[in-house]
């Protein structure tokens, strides 16, 4: 399911990213790559997301969150 479906406070494992190599590389450098465990810190139903991954807080735009599949 897309990351947008994950509620605040829930954990998920990243499965795949739908996007080009550059986007994937950028996300990977921030710790967001398939297999990464993340926790949704903020998902207010609109506006960007905050996820915790590898000890840092990353803001992800809603559009991009829709392209990130998690379980």
């Amino acid at each position, binding site marked *: 399911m897309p990351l947008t479906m994950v509620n605040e406070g829930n954990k998920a494992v990243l499965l795949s990213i739908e996007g080009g190599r550059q986007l994937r590389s950028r996300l990977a450098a921030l*710790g967001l790559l398939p297999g990464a465990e993340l926790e949704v810190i903020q998902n207010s139903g609109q506006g960007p997301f905050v996820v915790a991954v590898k000890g*840092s807080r990353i803001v992800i735009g809603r559009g991009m969150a829709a392209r990130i599949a998690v379980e």
Partner: protein
Amino acid sequence: MATTLEKTINVAVAGNPNSGKTTIFNNLTGARQRVGNYPGVTVEWKKGTHRRGDIKLDLIDLPGTYSLTAFSEEELVARDYLLNSSPDVVVNVVDASNLERNLFLTTELLEIGCPLVLVLNMTDVARDRGLGIDIARLAEKLGVPVVPAIGNKGVGMDEVVEAVMQVAVSQASLPGPAGLCRESGPGLASLAAVEKRGGPARVHYGSEVEKVIREIEHILPESDSRRWQAVKLVAGDDKVIDQMVAPGAREAVTGLAARFADSSIDEPDILLARLRYEFISGICQGVLRAPASDLITTSDRIDRIAMHPVWGVPIFLTLMYMVFTLTFSLGNPLMDLIDIGFGKLSGLVSGLWTLGSTSPLRSLIVDGIIGGVGGVIVFLPNIVLLFMAIAILEGTGYMARAAFVMDRFMSKVGLHGKSFIPLLIGFGCTVPAIMATRTLESRRDRLITMMVLPLMSCGARLPIYALLIPAFFPARLQGPALWLIYVTGILLALGGAHFLRATLFRGETTPFLMELPPYRMPTAGSLLVQMWTRAWLYLKKAGTVILGAAIILWFLTYYPKPSADYVLPAGFDNTTAAEATKFSEITDPNVEQAAELSYSIAGRVGRLIEPAIAPLGFDWRIGTALVGAIAAKEVFVAQMGIVFAVGEADETSDQLRAQLRHRYSPLIGFCIMLFALISTPCIATFAITRQEAGSIKWAFAQTFGLTALAWVVTFLVYQGGLLLGLGGA
């Protein structure tokens, strides 16, 4: 004597954004520059030196990056520097409280073949979070010296310098001056551990991947970074192919990479990134003792409120409102003091001439120079307070939250939440703000942001408001009037961006992605340094550009002098009779002065454009001052001072305000501010836009577009105000 023996070590400082890299750089070089707390503040790399005995370190502060892919301009700058300039030592600053993620860049630096010194920064934060790091073990596993440091307290800097010198010596770029490097010190324990290992660690990608890497390496020409290039080629980095692979070898290289990509289940770039993280996990094993569970930090708790979907925006707007109110209420008493000081100085200098002297030199010094520069310096308290507020917002980490909170709105007008950061810096000065648009990855986003940036009311426009608002509005309306001007600018910028996105720059928006740094308490020292840096820049501008402009403008307003039989144009001033008057027949000195001005070059330019600005409620005097504002926005104030007070010995703002109040209605006063806000950006903005957009076309587009917008908006407000009966005093 020392210079002939002096040895230079070239040092590059690299690290993730928010790792405290710039603070370390500042500590080492003593350079005065900005330290921010949000991604990408150090877009420009800065240079500085550090001396220790007869050794000189030449340091360069590379832009903060998360990796050395070529995703953004910062990464390209950092990577090109490391590859092409081959620094003697790279100081890699990592955030100890976020070690794994920070080591991602470190592994790339090792791969590229840089001689590294790892600075483990913010060890105090890590300790507070319950993280334990075995420094000697980390050094041993990575094969590079590791120095613990607390950048914002200046802890560990001597050890960093010593480690750098040791690495430089071991690179044989310098003969070892034995006496120079002490063998003790807490940070140097790790050096012994490094020697135990033998050489820097490198990521092992597993036999299959290593085979392809080796095959590609064979095709590439010999170099230190060959392995790194091969790894990037396996990952499909087109920029590396374009830059580094000889045309003849490209087919072979891409063929190998493509064959590997086909055989691999994962995308090669993802596979390599994962293997890199696995390697880092291996390094951290037995080095990093983390608390059992992810703790909800204080930052998260603050963010529940600061980034609340409902409260986030009001909190942000309230903070902005407080910033502007404080800027005025704290700044005004100080301004009065400066004003009195300059008044005294004028009086003192005037006293050197006989009373009532019309000496041009006296006028140049008193009215042109002291008046012009004094009129600018008087606003220093306001500027300093505003910069202080921005420094606090940056230093605490709130800036990134502001970007988050604003993304919802920014994405509606087709901009990035990240565009908000340059827009916010635009409140300080448009020039660094335009440079800060480099954090935006897409050229389209950058250009849109640049085009609307001058609408964010910069610090240089503050003097205009500071002069006009008290002149026309009672105390209770002064704060709201200022707020209204700023909000108008913001709304026009957003509207303009939306318009540009829908017309000139159509297409998909780039994704919003940003790290939220933990909240930090900025140290008083770093805030003062930032405040001083900006205040100094402002003063320097006052001493150079504005002084020059003030002298030119003084000349333009002083010459040519009308002859005795010059006939005044009919109705030239409301104090003169309607019938034609000869210059020699004027008895009132004020009218004489006004007539001289009218005759001068500036007056003529003002008159020339008067028909164009009359529908806005402006006369030739305002037109003349607006022309002056092109040199720098705050020159408007100096120009108004000259336009209204040439020949006056004691030129204080209050006198100028009285003149303004006498001549114009509050509606016109507001329209002047509106026009000054929106119209033609200053020369410096023009120049930086040309440079950053890469074409003078965009600089002209910005200038003419904004001037046209200013005319339309001011026209609507003025004529609308007249219809509503707001034209009276």
